[in-house]
């Protein structure tokens, strides 16, 4: 196993490797992470192998702090339960853990996002007669409303980063206050139930974060891309005044872990 903590060079890693590594870096040691299927699983597992061995992962179907020896392909997978601390049901996951306030970090994906971090995973077009239907919320809205921090992993496309998304599945920093639907700061709707909100969006081109007003800004650009590349793939006026530099590539050690320990079967990593 390559133990080098040197960063790999462009050409030595695939976009998905960087996504996984950048995702892993969002995990703090000790975090309780509530993660969805797919890339989030790679990121949290990589983090556990590296700087965050004390982080614990909850999957929606009810397994808590599992130590799968084979990568799950579903959050309901039998593999999630191997050596887990507790295997309950969805009531335990969503109410006993999430609503109870134990979750530090949510790891989510989405089809569309706006500049406040609102996410759409439900439909394209008018909800009442849509053009396409996606999966629907699942735990996206819940995790995003109750985790202290949320990280999104998405594809960078102009049609996915929109000024106004077609349906707000999952709440960002400005949300709709019902019954009127008036847009208000998240805290106004969540009141004493407020715990935090979206903190980062990681795509195949860049890492975005949210400012004090809850507005998305560009933080780092992945090696091989420019700020202009990113702007060209964002459908709203992106704040690029706070760019802090280039996204750190995966290290050789991280790459080795990803391919040899995290996903040796090549389920996500080709």
């Amino acid at each position, binding site marked *: 196993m390559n133990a080098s903590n040197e960063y790999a060079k462009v050409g030595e890693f695939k976009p998905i490797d960087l996504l996984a590594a950048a995702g892993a870096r969002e995990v703090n040691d000790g975090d309780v992470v509530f993660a969805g299927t797919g890339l989030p699983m790679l990121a949290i597992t990589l983090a556990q192998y590296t700087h965050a061995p004390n982080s614990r992962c909850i999957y929606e179907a009810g397994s808590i702090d599992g130590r799968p020896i*084979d990568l799950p392909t*579903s959050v309901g997978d039998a593999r999630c339960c191997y050596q887990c601390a507790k*295997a309950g049901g*969805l009531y335990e996951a969503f*109410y006993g853990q999430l609503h109870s306030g134990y979750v530090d970090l949510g790891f989510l994906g989405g089809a569309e996002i706006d500049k406040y971090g609102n996410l759409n995973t439900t439909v394209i077009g008018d909800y009442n007669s849509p053009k396409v239907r996606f999966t629907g*919320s699942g735990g996206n*809205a819940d995790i995003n409303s109750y985790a202290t921090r949320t990280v999104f992993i998405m594809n960078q496309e102009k049609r996915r980063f929109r000024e106004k998304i077609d349906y707000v599945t999952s709440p960002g920093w400005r949300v*709709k206050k019902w019954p009127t639907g008036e847009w208000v700061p998240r805290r106004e709707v969540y009141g004493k139930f407020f715990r935090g909100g979206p903190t980062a969006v990681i795509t195949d081109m860049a890492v975005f974060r949210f400012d004090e007003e809850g507005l998305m800004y560009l933080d780092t650009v992945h090696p091989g891309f420019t700020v202009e590349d990113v702007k060209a793939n964002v459908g709203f006026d992106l704040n690029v005044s706070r760019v802090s530099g280039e996204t750190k590539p995966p290290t050789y050690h991280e790459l080795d872990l990803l391919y040899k320990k995290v996903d040796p079967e090549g389920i996500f990593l*080709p």
Partner: protein
Amino acid sequence: MSTINEISLKEAAGLIQDGDCIAFSGFTIWRRPVALCYEMVRQGKKNLHLFEVQGGFHSEVLIGAGCVKMWEGSWIGQELLGKTGVNLSRKQCGGEVIVDDYSHGHAVARIQAGAIGVPFFPTALAMGTDILNPEYDGFARAGQRDGSNPYVARKKYEIVKDSFYDMGELLLMPAINPKVALVYAPMVGTEGTVRVLAQSYNDSDVIKAAETVIVICEEIVPDEYLRREPTQNLATGYEIDYVVKCPWAAHPTGSQYYYDTDADFLRYFNANTRTQEQFDKWADEWIFSVDSHEEYLEKLGVKRIEMLRASQALGYSTRVKRGMR
């Protein structure tokens, strides 16, 4: 010492009436009562109302076959093996199925309330979203919230203010008490005690919430065996009404310690049922061309069956090829 009411697969599907409100056991692509759904398609059920904490292959089959008129839930798809519910997508976009969306936490709250016999459940999850948009209340738009349908609440939700601790506003979500629960469980005891393995999902809630409960299982075992570990059991005999014995009834969804999910089968389904013509062709092959579950298993063949069979140590198959390496 009670006994169980054991019936055949065909009889079980025959208990479902057109228009019934139904909920299912399992999670996405695990422990779904698929054989029962196939048989319901064969029997040509119509206008079903599905309440699903989250849907999966089984609901895609019922929806694709035109059995479903109303669908409510938080999610539909097959996770990595077919990310979206292509059949619901087609029917929703085509206006053939009335859809009402919730968050996962909302749906969990609703079935929990139904299970414990209270009319609503409080939650602060998923506030501020279009899930609560009155314009997008699909069941209200379809005129279903006038109190005449006992399986649809008069309101999608209510916003209330906490007067105990001044926590501010939160939601009440209405209970759901489906007419029928279709539950797949690996083991049912001779007195009706039900056990599931590895994870319980919402299965207990679905059983408690429904008026009639049909359990389809891999095997019927001595109740005494299940009673040695009572904390592991899901339901008592008096909570269920009918039992169907039908090995591999969950295929292509998985059943921990019995068989893994059939990834190839699910991927193929998702990729090849996007149009109605495609779905009909698929259904011809896998539902209508076989007259019984035994024929379906023969069609799957020994090789596939054996590949899916779970390791008794791990609960899943170690023979199935899942990735690219």
